[in-house]
């Protein structure tokens, strides 16, 4: 029987707000 495809790994996503914070901190870090 064909090998069952491996289950896909769920990638945890930050919320839009968390992404915004990440973005702000990146912009502050960048020179």
């Amino acid at each position, binding site marked *: 029987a064909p090998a069952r*495809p*491996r*289950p*896909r*790994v*769920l*990638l*945890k*996503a*930050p*919320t*839009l707000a968390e*992404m*915004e914070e*990440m*973005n702000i901190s990146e912009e502050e870090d960048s020179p």
Partner: protein
Amino acid sequence: MQVSVQRKEKDFQGMLEYYKEDEPLLIRNLITDLKPQTVSATVPCLPAYILYMCIRHADYINDDQKVHSLLTSTINGIKKVLKKHNDDFQLTSFWLANTCRLLHCLKQYSGDADFMTQNTPKQNEHCLKNFDLTEYRQVLSHLSIQIYQQLIKITEAILQPMVVSAVLENESIQGLSGVKPMGYRNRSSSMEDGDNSYSLHAIIHQLNTFHSIMSDQGLDPEIVQQVFKQLFYMINAVALNNLLLRKDVCSWSTGMQLRFNISQLEDWLRGKNLQQSGAAQMLEPLIQAAQLLQLKKKTSEDAEAICSLCTSLSTQQIVKILNLYTPVNEFEERVTVTFIRDIQMHLQERNDPPQLFLDFKHMFPVMFPFNPSSITMDSIHLPASLNLEFLSKV
């Protein structure tokens, strides 16, 4: 060389590879600096397909960090563009179309059988192999709602100033303009400086502009329909609220004009195949107000006819319009207090909430129904104008 290039083209599996350090360049050239006209002659939503092909390669090499980074940068890039151009209809519509298309791609190629029913066998080969991006789809859905709300805000800001003069005051039927309510020969107060008056043609031209831009950019038809349902709700609310404040437009002749102007808007909806959108139904209160202005207002039968017709107007709105009603000449009788009492008596059992003005800022919830594409990834061509030569076809 020639053979290897041909083989390369032949073996293109619909993925795009890039070096991690090129991600900022990808986001800049494909999102933050991209002008919609750069890709106007290509397949609609090309940026969304390119982004999906990049995600797919990162999934193919099982690099979760690369997927996280690309999706986060993509979402932040789109938010950044829209924040910077928060009054640009074309750009907002463009990114609504592309964000929805990317969302549809992540579903269509998720490997989830529910989203693959319309896939070709070739498309099923282009599914993600390693990662489940359900949570990122949720984030993209939230982003789509934000972009849609910005699009509505922009379109309403453009249309709202046009509504009263174009729909309520526009004298499209020649010859009726002489038939003005007594004491209101000149145009109404809102036309102090003529330059803020718009014709019915102007508002229909604007609706056409919105419609053609959204359609050319590949925005899902279901979303285009919701945009116009929302806009026609606003048109109805602004025009009716204005009518409920002005004696000079509560007359038989304005009723006639108004009904004609609305019929032109209804024709426009039919011409754009927007009958299913629910937009025409949004005009029902205004249609009934126009008819109320034209109906006889004397006998108890007249009162019954008005009450059975004006089902989309509240009791307060019906009474207000009758109180404001102004005969066009000395031969036409005024609406009597007795008649209005009769109306109120007929409407008593309705028990409708005391509501006079409509909330023209009300926004309906938006839905993004799944809309798979028939385009296969390996048929996508990258135009040189996008400056994405650092992407390698795989």
